């Protein structure tokens, strides 16, 4: 009966209840949808990090992480044999990686030179898909280089231009090679674009003396869930090498993802905090309007716990009716925009790329966050009910009846 009373009381002032319920619904829709955008950005960042940048796992010589010298390399044959035995591995790319100086007639810049097998690089990070202008590396053509559009713009480079890469070989001798720009690429990570150029592995190996050796092995898995088992397998198979998962290679991505839950919680909390004042106000008015009625209930024998429960129940209903409607609206919006995407390219595409995000965002709404939000709504309702409920409890029946 308390539930019936609470429910019917809610609709005594229909307009007021509808206003607060609508506020809760709108607040929940806005909060949850923005949360879905954050999660979408996080998910996209993860996919970019794994599929286009660092892959799931990377293997290096232990000395390479501290000092990217050519001498810290690994034998390609034995690595390939190990990787080929693990079915969970979809593709791998064995790279020669070194730092050096890119020089042109118009300037120079410190860069990282990635010597790659074009096919393997396409398989692990879809490098060919990022070529905006010109051609991808041709396995049959010597001394071709892919530079980013950003670097090309900065150094005023064009397709067909020659550049000189000055590097250190395995014996720390300076060596240099002339390369012709075959294409311009453009990934979703502007800072990395500016620092990386790509050449054939065989061309780089010839310059720095790492034929048959690799500085970096990037491994792409069939499924994200295979990450830890494969990591353990590799650690056992290659104990002398440094095996790292994407979280260790790209800690900023891991940080973004791990902080998403916290961000969304804080965000929803702020919205609920604002809504709670509306709820408190509504319930206070409801209690004050019913002073005589509550006094009568206490006079005829309704104990304080029940009076408290009635007000709390009413408040919870007030908050909880609007929340599912808002969450449903957010889910539908996410479903729609998760399919079409939100293209921010025209407004802030470059800024997003500067932080490694794609300009098109596909919102994602994880169920655990929806459940968490509902729990927070309930908690807010209970907390918001305390003040009006205490107000009701402080009423003295004899005085309340006289009002």
């Amino acid at each position, binding site marked *: *009966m308390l539930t*019936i*009373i609470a429910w*019917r*009381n809610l609709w*005594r002032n229909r307009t007021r209840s509808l206003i607060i319920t609508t506020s809760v619904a709108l607040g929940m829709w806005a909060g949850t949808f923005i949360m879905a955008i954050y999660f979408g950005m996080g998910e996209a960042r993860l996919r970019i990090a794994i599929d286009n940048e660092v892959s799931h796992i990377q293997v290096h010589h232990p000395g390479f992480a501290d000092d990217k010298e050519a001498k810290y390399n690994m034998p390609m044959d034995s690595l390939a044999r190990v990787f080929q035995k693990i079915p969970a591995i979809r593709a791998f790319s064995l790279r020669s990686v070194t730092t050096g100086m890119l020089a042109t007639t118009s300037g120079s810049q410190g860069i990282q030179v990635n010597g790659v097998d074009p096919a393997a690089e396409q398989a692990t990070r879809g490098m060919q898909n990022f070529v905006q202008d010109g051609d991808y590396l041709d396995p049959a053509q010597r001394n071709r280089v892919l530079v980013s559009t950003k670097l090309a713009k900065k150094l005023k480079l064009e397709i067909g231009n020659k550049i000189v890469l000055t590097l250190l070989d395995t014996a720390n001798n300076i060596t240099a090679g002339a390369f012709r720009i075959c294409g311009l690429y453009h990934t979703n990570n502007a800072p990395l674009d500016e620092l990386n150029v790509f050449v054939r592995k065989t061309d780089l190996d010839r310059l720095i003396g790492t034929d048959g050796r690799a500085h970096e092995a990037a491994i792409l898995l069939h499924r994200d869930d295979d990450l830890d088992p494969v990591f353990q397998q590799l650690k056992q198979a290659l104990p002398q090498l440094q095996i790292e998962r994407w979280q260790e290679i790209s800690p900023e991505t891991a940080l973004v993802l791990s902080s998403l839950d916290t961000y969304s919680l804080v965000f929803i909390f702020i919205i609920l905090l604002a809504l709670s004042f509306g709820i408190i106000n509504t319930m206070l008015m409801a209690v004050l309007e019913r002073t*005589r*009625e509550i006094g*009568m*209930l*206490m*006079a*005829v*024998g*309704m*104990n*304080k716990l*029940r009076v408290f429960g009635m007000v709390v129940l009413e408040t919870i209903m007030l908050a909880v009716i609007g929340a599912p409607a808002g969450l449903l609206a957010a889910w539908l919006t996410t479903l729609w925009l998760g399919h079409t995407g939100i293209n921010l390219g025209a407004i802030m595409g470059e800024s997003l790329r500067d932080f490694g995000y794609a300009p098109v965002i596909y919102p994602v709404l994880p169920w655990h966050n929806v459940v968490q939000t509902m729990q927070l709504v309930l908690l807010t309702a209970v907390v918001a009910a305390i003040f009006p409920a205490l107000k009701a409890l402080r009423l003295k*029946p*004899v005085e309340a*009846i006289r009002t």
Partner: protein
Amino acid sequence: MQTVIDAHNISKVYNPDTIPVHAVNSVHLHLNRGEFTALVGPSGSGKTTLLNIIGGLDAPTEGQVVINGINISELKPNQLINFRLHNIGFVFQAFNLIPVLTASENVEFIMLLQKRPKAERTRRVHELLASVGLSDKLNVRPSQLSGGQQQRVAVARALASRPQFILADEPTANLDSHSAATLLDIMEKMNREEAITFLFSTHDQRVIDRARRVITLVDGRIENDSAATQIRH
């Protein structure tokens, strides 16, 4: 005769530290089971205050109220609420029904607070509303009932808890003469047939005429008690 209410030396002073107002002054009141008593007196004579004190809604400044051998002045707040729930029925001048509940739900509500079984509640709701002539208004909300009908629901509600006695504060004050007469008929019938004790505070001559005992309060003191007068005569 079984004593239901024994109010001993009751005084109530409002604003004792500023301008004291003596609402009730050393009142002794003794009510037996089955009495049909009217507490009368001019406005401000202390009728409602005395009724509230007897009903455990207000605490006396001095004195004690013993109901069925229990000194209610010694009960803790929650015990007092529970005591009221099981022992006292209230009828208020302004009816004070729960507007969002139907007539039957208003009556049932008290029994629900007493945790009575569903079957008993349903049976008693029907009995009580039939006894006050509202069998056809079970599912009607108070706003759709006349004042007289609302007060009859309030009487049914007061009886629902099977109380020791019913305190009615100006029960006919807001009713027309026909409704007042009907209500008094019902209460008289219940008093006669089920020996339910009634104590009214009232100005209403129609109630006073029906009461078998009339206690007159003036300035917070009992000026006349017809029972005592009868004994003296």
